[in-house]
């Protein structure tokens, strides 16, 4: 089984579509909601972890796109600027899921996107403003 973290962007026109329900029923996907922010008049954002077979995930995401909902993958939206980063570690202990760690040998920062739930703690903890979440 594959796992993908995605970000759905809803507009006021499609904000009421039951997207997660359809993904579970029609495409047999496991869904873990990591974050949801909605305002019916403005639309919203949904951060999900999807688990399923590769073709099920792809078909499911195509279906979501056809509904007019924006689909983005999390690793494209959480940006770590390695040039700016000084490997201090200010982001490490504040991360609830262990995405960020200092390598035991080199003491350089490692960023494990797989574990990220886009809480944004690291964004505000980074003194060099080297981490950005673009949604």
């Amino acid at each position: 089984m594959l796992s993908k973290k995605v970000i759905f962007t809803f507009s006021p026109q499609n904000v009421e579509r039951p997207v997660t329900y359809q993904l579970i029923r029609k495409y047999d996907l496991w869904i873990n909601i990591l974050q949801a922010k909605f305002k019916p008049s403005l639309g919203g954002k949904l951060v999900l972890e999807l688990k399923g077979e590769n073709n099920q995930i792809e078909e499911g995401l195509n279906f979501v796109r056809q509904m007019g909902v924006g689909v983005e993958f999390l690793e494209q939206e959480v940006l770590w600027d390695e040039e700016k980063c000084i490997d201090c570690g200010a982001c490490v202990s504040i991360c609830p899921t262990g995405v960020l760690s200092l390598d035991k040998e080199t003491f350089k920062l490692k960023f494990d996107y797989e574990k990220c739930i886009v809480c944004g703690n690291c964004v505000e903890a980074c003194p060099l403003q080297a981490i950005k979440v673009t949604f």
Partner: protein
Amino acid sequence: MAIKRTYEEINKRIKKGKAVIATAEEIIPIVEEKGIERAAKEIDVVTTGTFGPMCSSGAIINFGHSDPPIRMQKAWLNDVEAYAGLAAVDVYLGATQLSESQGMEYGGAHVIEDLISGKKIKLKAISRGTDCYPRREIESYITKESINQAILFNPRNAYQNYNVAVNTSDKKIYTYMGILLPNMGNANYCTSGQLSPLLNDPQFRTIGIGTRIFLGGTQGYIAWEGTQFYPQVLKGEPNKTVNKGGTLAVIGDLKEMSTDYIRAATFKGYGVTLVEGIGIPIPILNSEIMKSVSAKDEDIWTDVIDYSFPHLKKPSLGRVNYRQLREGKITIQRKDVPASPLSSYAKAREIAQKLKDKILRGEFLLQEPIQKFPKQNKFKPLLEIR
């Protein structure tokens, strides 16, 4: 026979390309293998390094005179006020001063970083005007090439050791020690431990006024003891003594520095600071000094302090060592707390290595202190007197 060396002998060996140098990290296994006496015989110099936020920093800048000339009374660089209460075109730009238009996103430290990287900086200054300096305002652009001097002069840098910060309250707090999660959700510390300059010479046997150092990528000097200098050992729990209060005032040519080793930073909710790289070479004049530089992370202790307490004397929740901190988890009051640094160990290591390479190439000679620091000092509070 006990080893004795002088600065002259060491510098002679450096010039001949014969000096043997190790970083404060590399020396640890050498001493473990050979013992202090033999290591002291073989090694001439041990290099240290640190790269962390140091708020008490700033730059002296001389712009040169305009025509007609102005005696600047207030001056701004990219909207950040610099202190102009000096002679006509001298200012002191403090690292933590905030921009008047961008707030915490930009400050004195950012101006310093932009200046080093060669960017154009907007200057604005005003004055009452005098007979000798008739001009009352000026707006222009400067770069590091256009100005006469840009001298980094930091009153308090390179803290010997520092607290570990935690928060026992039920609210997230924003401090100069970073973001502290409620109920001791995390612990932040800010020292390069076994690589830290002043922890490798805790008695200040070789570090004093006039010591040549690596500062922001170039050569600088120790100008004086740092403000709030407190060289005494803090006693407490046996075998867990803490050297904490040594500090340095440092000076160097900003124009020669590199943004690889000096950077602006913003701590959310607290403000702007300057992240600086400092490296100090420690000459192995005798075996006692070799003993000091062989200190390991597990030998270096510090206090865990509760930053949710809003008063000057904050409660200590116990002592931990840098080995425990470096492993990323400490135990405070039977609770496991994830710990992470605010100063970069990777960069500290790079600086110690770079300083070692410079000495090996004969580009950096050791300077004996012109004067030693006081052995004792008082740490006075500010009393409110009415």
